[in-house]
C-alpha cells in the first residue's frame, strides 16, 4: 500500500468501523425488545459493502436482501432512518412499514431490500434495464448471498442481463452458510460460484471479501469497466458472518461450525485486518481510532435517540397504502371516442 492510499484507506476504515459499531449497538440493545422485527446482522462482512459502496454515486441504484444494513449504510443510506425503521417508527426509512428487512433510501439510490431470498435480483436487473432505456449513465448493484444463487430467478435474471449486456453488478457475499446450512449441502463445491456466473455469460471474478486492501482497487476497476463497457459483472466475495443468522447472539459455536473454519475467519476479521495494516504503516494512530469511535458513537447515540423519540405510525393509517390513489381524469379527457379510427391491416 502506497502513501497515496492513506486517505483512501483511512476513509474506508472509518466506514467499515461505523457499520460495525452500528450493528454492535443494535445487537446490544436488541434484548430491550424495542426493536421488534427479525434482524440480520452483517458483522464480519463489512468490507464488501464498503468496497462496493465507495465506488458508487447516488445516481447508481442498489438492491439487497434480508441482510442489508451494511449495504444500505455503505450506499449512503440515512442512519437515523435505519434505526427508526428497525424500531418500527414513522420516521423510519420505510415509515415503519418495512422493518429491518425492507430498507430504502431513494435519495441515495438504495432502492430496496426485501425478505424473500433472491427476489430483488430481477428487480435490480429491471432497474438497470430502466437506466439503459432512459440513457441514465448509471449502474445497478445487486447484493446477494451464497444461497440466493440457488434460486432459479437468479439464473433467469443473469441470463437476461447477459442477453441485454446490462450495466448491472452482482455482488455475492459467500459467507458459507444459508441460515445454518453449509454450502456443500446446497451446491457442488468443486464449482465456484463466480465460475458458475461466468458459465452463464457474465464477466466474473472472486475476491477475498475480508481484506479490503487486497481487493479495493480491482473492484474499482471492475465498476469502471461496467460503466464503460457494460455488463453484467458478477463478483464473489469470500467472507464470514459472526452472529446467528437472525438476531443478536454470537454464532461461533464450535458445535455448529468447524473449529478450524471459525478460527480461520476470526483471524481475518475485516475491520481488524485493515486496522492492523494502517497501524503498521503508521497511517493511523490508536488515538485517531479512539476519536473515530467517539465520533461514530455520538452519531449512533443520536440515531437511537431519534428512533426512540420518534412516533409510531398512526393506526389510522393502516389502510392508507392499500392502493395508491390515482386520478385518471386526464385520461378521460384525452380519450375522444368520436375521433378514434382503428384500421385493420
Amino acid at each position: 500500500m502506497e502513501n497515496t492510499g492513506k486517505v483512501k484507506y483511512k476513509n474506508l476504515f472509518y466506514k467499515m468501523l461505523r457499520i460495525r459499531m452500528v450493528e454492535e449497538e443494535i445487537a446490544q440493545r436488541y434484548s430491550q425488545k424495542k426493536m421488534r422485527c427479525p434482524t440480520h446482522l452483517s458483522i464480519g462482512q463489512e468490507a464488501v459493502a464498503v468496497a462496493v459502496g465507495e465506488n458508487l454515486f447516488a445516481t447508481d441504484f442498489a438492491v439487497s436482501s434480508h441482510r442489508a444494513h451494511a449495504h444500505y449504510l455503505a450506499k449512503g443510506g440515512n442512519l437515523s432512518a435505519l434505526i427508526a425503521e428497525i424500531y418500527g417508527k414513522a420516521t423510519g426509512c420505510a415509515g415503519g412499514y418495512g422493518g429491518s428487512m425492507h430498507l430504502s433510501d431513494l435519495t441515495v439510490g438504495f432502492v430496496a431490500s426485501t425478505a424473500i431470498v433472491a427476489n430483488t435480483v430481477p428487480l435490480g436487473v429491471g432497474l438497470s434495464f430502466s437506466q439503459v432505456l432512459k440513457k441514465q449513465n448509471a449502474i445497478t448493484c445487486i447484493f446477494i448471498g451464497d444461497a440466493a444463487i440457488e434460486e432459479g430467478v437468479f439464473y433467469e435474471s443473469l441470463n437476461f442481463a447477459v442477453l441485454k449486456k446490462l450495466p448491472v453488478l452482482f455482488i455475492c457475499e459467500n459467507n458459507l452458510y444459508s441460515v445454518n446450512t453449509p454450502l456443500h449441502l446446497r451446491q457442488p463445491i468443486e464449482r465456484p460460484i463466480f465460475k458458475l456466473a461466468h458459465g452463464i455469460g457474465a464477466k466474473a471474478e472472486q475476491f477475498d471479501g475480508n481484506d479490503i486492501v487486497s481487493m479495493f482497487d480491482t473492484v474499482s476497476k471492475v465498476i469502471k469497466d461496467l460503466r464503460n463497457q457494460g455488463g453484467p459483472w458478477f463478483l464473489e466475495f469470500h467472507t464470514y458472518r459472526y452472529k446467528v443468522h437472525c438476531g443478536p447472539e454470537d454464532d461461533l459455536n464450535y458445535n455448529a461450525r468447524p473449529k478450524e473454519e471459525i478460527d480461520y475467519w476470526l483471524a481475518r476479521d475485516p475491520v481488524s485486518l485493515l486496522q492492523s495494516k494502517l497501524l503498521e504503516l503508521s497511517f493511523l494512530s490508536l488515538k485517531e481510532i479512539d476519536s473515530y469511535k467517539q465520533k461514530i458513537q455520538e452519531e449512533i447515540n443520536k440515531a437511537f435517540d431519534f428512533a426512540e423519540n420518534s412516533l409510531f405510525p398512526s393506526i389510522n393509517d393502516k389502510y392508507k397504502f392499500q392502493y395508491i390513489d390515482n386520478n385518471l381524469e386526464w385520461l378521460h379527457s384525452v380519450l375522444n371516442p368520436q375521433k378514434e379510427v382503428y384500421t385493420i391491416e
Partner: protein
Amino acid sequence: MSNIKFINLVNAALKKAMQLDKSVLCYGLGMNDPTRIFGASEGLVEEFGEERVFDMPTSENAMTGVGIGLAINGFRPVFSHARLDFILLAMDQIINNAAKWNTMFAGAMSVPITIRLLVGRGWGQGPTHCQSLQANFAHIPGLKVVMPSFPEDVYGLLLSSIFDNNPVIFIEHRWLHNIVCDTNPYDFVPLGKARTVVNGSDITVVSMSYMTIEALHAIKFLQERGVNCDLIDLRTVKPIDWETIYKSINRTGKLLVLDTGFEFCSIASEIISKVSMDCFNNLNIAPRRLAMPDVSVPTSYILANSLYTYSENIASEICKMLKVDIDTQPLKNKRDNFPRDTPGDWFEGPF
C-alpha cells in the same frame, strides 16, 4: 366500425397508451413474431421500436421482476402471456413484490405494471392451459384484477389499467377475442365500476368475462319469454363495485353469480358471501352460483365440455330459482349448431 374485434381493441389500446406516454413498454413471449400474440401487438414494434416493444426469454418469474424494476424507475410496462397458467411461475414476484411494494415502503414507490393473462378454453386445451385463476390474484391485497367482457369496454379498461398506479392483473378470455364490436368502443372506462348490461327486476345476475356472453344469450332468451334479469358485468373483479350489486339485489331480492373460475374460494364465493352478509334482509331466496366445478379440466373435449357452463344452464338455473317453467331446449339446440369446444367457427388455433 363493425369489423373491429375485441382483440383489435386490445391492440388499439396498447397503441394508444404508447402514443400517450413514452413510459409505456410492451413485452412478452412472441411479442414481435409474425402472429403478434393473436394480433394484440400488431404494428407496435414498427411504430415504437424494439426498445419499447420486445420479446424475451422463457423466464416468466425474472421477467416479472424486471417489469417491477422498470416500473419502480418510472416505466409502465405491459407484460403479456398467451396463457394465464404460465404466470404461476411468477407468483413470488407478483405476490411478494408487486402487490406489496406500495405498503412495504409506505408509499415511496409505486409499481404500475399491467400483466395481461389470456384464459384458454376448448379444443383440448387441457388442465394447464385453461385455468381462470382470478380468485388467486384477487385474494392478495394490493392487486387490482380486471376482466373485460365486451369489446366496447376492453379499450377503456386496458387504458385505465395501464395508467393505474397499482399493479393490475388484466385477464382476457380467449373466446372473447373474435367478438365484434357494435357500438363506439373508444370511451374511457374507470376501474372498479361494474356495468349494468341488461335491466330487469326479477333477479340479479352478476357475471364476468366470457360468462357474461353466455349470460346475455340466456337472458335475452328469457326476456322473450317474460323473465327480466338485471345483468351486471363486473369488469373489475377486484376491487368489486359493491354499490351497483347491492342496489340491484335490494330491488330483485335474488342473486345468481357466474364465474369463469373454479368455484371453491372464488369471486362468486366472495360475492355471495358479501351479499349474504350485507343484504341479508333483502335477499328473499337462496343465492346461487354457476362456476367451474372443483375438478381439473381434462383434455378430451367430451369431458371438458361437460364441465363448462353454457347459456342453457344459466337459463335453467334462473328458471329454477324463479320457479318458472320455460323450456330451454331451443337455446341448447342453437348452441349445438357449432361445436361446444369452440366459441364459433374460428377457433381451431392458434390457441
